[in-house]
């Protein structure tokens, strides 16, 4: 280990975003279903949301002036890492309940881990973000764990 991760960077572990509460509409489900070329009527009609619809509901909406030059919104949960080139990451999702029009959902994101590993061509930094999506009854609807790798 080369000890890339300073105390300051590691101190961000456990940081949590402000909860975001959004409403699910039939029109948004239909748009998402069309855009993914879904072929099932229940999704195209917007009766129920297809899996992964929560990506649409909770993608960051920020002013244009806060986008980086490549058009990406900067994730405020993350510290400035000593490595910046993003490599393929992974997603681990659990679907607890279906999502329907009229549902109010709240997402909370937590930076759950930062660690480094020796890769074949140098050190790699891994970080994990847990997003929990809950209904107004506080029951879990979707759990999403994202792992990203920087080199």
């Amino acid at each position, binding site marked *: 280990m080369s000890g890339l991760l300073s105390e300051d960077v590691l101190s961000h572990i456990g940081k949590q975003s402000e909860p975001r509460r959004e409403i699910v509409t039939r029109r948004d489900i239909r748009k998402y279903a069309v*855009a993914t070329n879904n072929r*099932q009527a229940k999704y195209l009609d917007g009766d129920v949301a297809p899996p*992964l619809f929560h990506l649409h509901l909770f993608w960051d909406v920020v002013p244009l002036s806060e986008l980086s030059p*490549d058009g*990406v919104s900067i994730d405020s949960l993350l510290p400035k890492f000593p490595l910046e080139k993003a490599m393929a990451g*992974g997603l*681990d999702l659990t*679907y607890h309940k279906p999502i329907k029009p009229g549902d109010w959902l709240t997402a909370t994101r937590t930076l759950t881990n930062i660690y480094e590993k020796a890769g074949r061509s140098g050190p790699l930094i891994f970080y994990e973000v847990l997003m929990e999506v809950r209904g107004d009854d506080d029951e879990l609807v979707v759990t999403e764990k994202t792992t990203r790798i920087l080199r």
Partner: protein
Amino acid sequence: MSPAPTVGMAIPQRQHYCDEVQQMLYNASLWNGHRIHFDMPYATEVEGYPGLVVAGPLMGDWLHQVVDEWLGDAGMITGIEYSNRIAAYVGETVTSGGTVTAYDEATGEVTLEVFVKNERDEVLTPGVITATLTLAS
């Protein structure tokens, strides 16, 4: 869904051709302004990609769809683990599919290894999906 799943069985595959219009609508639907998906000079000259990059989560969506179409109303996806390993580019035709790796008749829980592959047979997006079949009542 017609036959009961058996370990080793392949589910019907699906081809996906993502053109500029679908790419635009998908990223607009997410609210994703990342230039590599729609700005050709930026994608090729600045980032060095051979073309416009298909959004990673769209390939994740296709993993879900190929299983969800197979399940129909007979079951529901309960979880997925996947990663985007290799990029796909607008104008390519890719194929999604999967194989049943476990099935528990008592609980209705089925596990499938799934993939999105390109025309060179490279697996772009490997994953594992779990689903629960509604048991006949």
